[in-house]
């Protein structure tokens, strides 16, 4: 037996069970070739229903105006921008897994990257809805594009963070989609080449772009993936940085903070990983992929959650400290009265956020809890709620009692259409995700095969035996030979 690559035996296998290349294909392609279960139809039906409710809510908003949401002059940004930031943040975990972990050569990313990237793309699609429909006169949305027009030409304001956002989000969406799809080509080819029906062969043939698996193509594909990962890494950091600039460049106390960019990026990854956990725990069970998304994967992601959660906690405390240290009346008011005072109108949301994002993730310092699926699932929901409230706290508690007491708005609560719009994006997200789970290879087949012989359980076991028998000989013959 000759080995191509050696991985430490101390590491947990990434692929459990007795697998060979063909078995990997079978396991991952099986859900595509089977008829969807009853559960799938029910889930898909609920998602589509939510989506339609969202469409009707948007219809109300477009027909009757932004007043359909309970926004007012004081609270101009309410649920909609909260939801926008929340969804964009969720997207960030997918890029972190697919790009940053690729650069850091983390083998475990291969099990989850495909679904996480899908999550990114769908989340960014949902996020994009909010600023677009928030424009009110949505038929003028194309005004944000810089093109030679008959109005002067009057250009967009390139100095405005809101325009930076347009470029950031659209670039992020495009690059994520390209990265994801280029990785899908070889896997679509796998589905195509084993298709039993003519229709499936044709559809996946179109989707695979005629991929053949030629060595030269693989060589270019590897190079392309590496460069796209290198580009996506600063891109993902820039996107949430720019989102935070929407707030940080203003002069509103509570927003006017230099800590925002790193704080937003950490929060985005934190919430994104929670969403990946929520989805993965369900996907691995329903599609029977426990061998590929192992407890080791879940633990690794929980480690990221406790790390980024702690960064976020640090940012919360820094904000409070600086508000006190700066002794600026308005800043102090925003932090210690609007937020810190539990009995102020929105004080409860601040403490809810603190509990969900700062206190509860600390459970994950325990290895036992990190590897407990039930705990992880509930924690992932709690973190998602907490991170939604973080954005709500930042947006609403900073503006609802502004400089002029006569314009204070302490009675803001969302209207049914505002909530309906949010639910509608859940519908959009899960409709896409259900279709993805049925028609797409949910795990990167080719990437799993590439790490199978170094990280598969059966191969690792074999290697341990050889190692034990004659470690010196093993080293000379196998390891040195491989280089």
């Amino acid at each position, binding site marked *: *037996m*000759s*080995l*191509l*690559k050696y991985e430490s035996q101390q590491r947990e296998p990434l692929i459990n069970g007795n697998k*060979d*290349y*063909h078995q990997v*294909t079978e396991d991952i392609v099986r859900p595509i070739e089977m008829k969807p279960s009853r559960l799938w139809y029910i889930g898909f039906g609920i998602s589509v229903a939510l989506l339609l409710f969202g469409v009707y809510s948007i219809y109300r908003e477009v027909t009757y105006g932004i007043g359909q949401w309970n926004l007012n002059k004081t609270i101009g940004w309410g649920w909609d921008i909260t939801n926008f930031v929340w969804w964009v943040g969720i997207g960030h975990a997918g890029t972190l897994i697919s790009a940053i972990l690729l650069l850091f050569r983390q083998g475990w990313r291969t099990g989850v990257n495909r679904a996480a990237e899908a999550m990114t793309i769908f989340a960014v699609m949902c996020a994009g809805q909010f600023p677009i429909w928030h424009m009110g006169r949505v038929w003028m949305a194309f005004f944000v594009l810089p093109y030679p027009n008959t109005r*002067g*030409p*009057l*250009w967009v*304001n*390139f*100095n405005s963070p809101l*325009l*930076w956002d347009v*470029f*950031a989000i659209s*670039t992020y969406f*495009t*690059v994520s989609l*390209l990265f994801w799809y*280029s990785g899908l*080509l*070889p896997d679509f*080819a*796998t589905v195509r*080449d*084993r298709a039993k029906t003519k229709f499936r062969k044709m559809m996946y*043939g*179109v989707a695979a*772009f*005629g*991929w*053949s*698996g*030629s*060595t*030269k*193509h*693989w*060589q*270019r*594909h590897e*190079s*392309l993936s590496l*460069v*796209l990962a290198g*580009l*996506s890494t*600063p891109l993902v950091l*820039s996107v949430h940085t*720019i989102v935070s*600039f929407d707030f940080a460049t203003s002069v509103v106390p509570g927003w006017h903070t230099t800590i925002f960019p790193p704080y937003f990026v950490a929060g985005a990854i934190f919430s994104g990983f929670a969403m990946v956990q929520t989805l993965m725990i369900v996907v691995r069970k329903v599609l029977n992929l426990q061998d590929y998304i192992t407890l080791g994967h879940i633990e690794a992601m929980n480690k990221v959650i406790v790390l980024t959660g702690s960064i976020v906690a640090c940012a919360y405390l820094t904000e409070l400290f600086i508000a006190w240290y700066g002794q600026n009346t308005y800043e102090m008011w925003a932090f210690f009265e609007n937020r810190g005072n539990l009995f102020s109108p929105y004080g409860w949301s601040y403490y809810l956020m603190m509990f969900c994002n700062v206190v509860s993730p600390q459970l994950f310092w325990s290895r036992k809890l990190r590897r407990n699926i039930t705990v992880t699932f509930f924690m992932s929901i709690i973190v998602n709620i907490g991170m939604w409230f973080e954005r709500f706290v930042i947006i609403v508690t900073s503006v609802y009692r502004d400089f002029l007491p006569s314009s204070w708005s302490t009675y803001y609560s969302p209207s049914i259409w505002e909530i309906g719009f949010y639910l509608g994006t859940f519908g959009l997200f899960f409709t896409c995700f259900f279709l993805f789970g049925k028609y797409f290879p949910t795990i990167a*087949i*080719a990437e799993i*095969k*590439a790490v199978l012989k170094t990280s598969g359980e059966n191969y690792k076991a074999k290697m341990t035996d050889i190692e034990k028998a004659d470690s010196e000989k093993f080293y000379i013959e196998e390891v040195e030979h491989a280089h």
Partner: protein
Amino acid sequence: MAGGQKKFVVGCFDDEAVLFPAVKKVRKAGYKIHDVYTPFPVHGLDHAMGLRETSIHTAGFIYAITGTTTAVAFISWIFTKDWPLNIGGKPHFALPAWIPITFELTVLFAAVGMVLTFCYLCNLAPFVKKHVFHPRATDDLFVMAIECTDKTNEAEVQSFLSNAGAIEINIQVAETGWWIGRYDREQKLYKEEVGY
């Protein structure tokens, strides 16, 4: 070249550990490997086959600087020449405020350009059909196609492949054209290489 036909001896391997020495042997014997089709990227196979490095990343760099230049040139023309806005008396040429958009366009141009280049070079597009030497090449087999010329003794190549460890060997005729690839030109001859 389209319209002609080419003959290939196709050998299938089920283990990359067997494939590597086989590639070496086949090239040493002077046969011309048309291509090896694998289900996943086998690291080092490109070197073993004598393929040159890809320069797609250089193309990416060129697209990136095109994006940077486009953004800076376009925004500075708009804000200093075409429609200079007076924003609180601040300079029209506000470069620091343009960095985010410049960065985004750099990334956008590089990514889109590279993916299009990749598809162009590999002849990838929807509705493209290529000659499939073995359907399991995207599943669990490593498929080596050796090009035959008039002088090639096919039986000899077949037995050679079988000795090298191929589990399935056959002869296939494919119509020549871009869809069967054109990388044979870049492959260096075995004896020209150093390091073996």
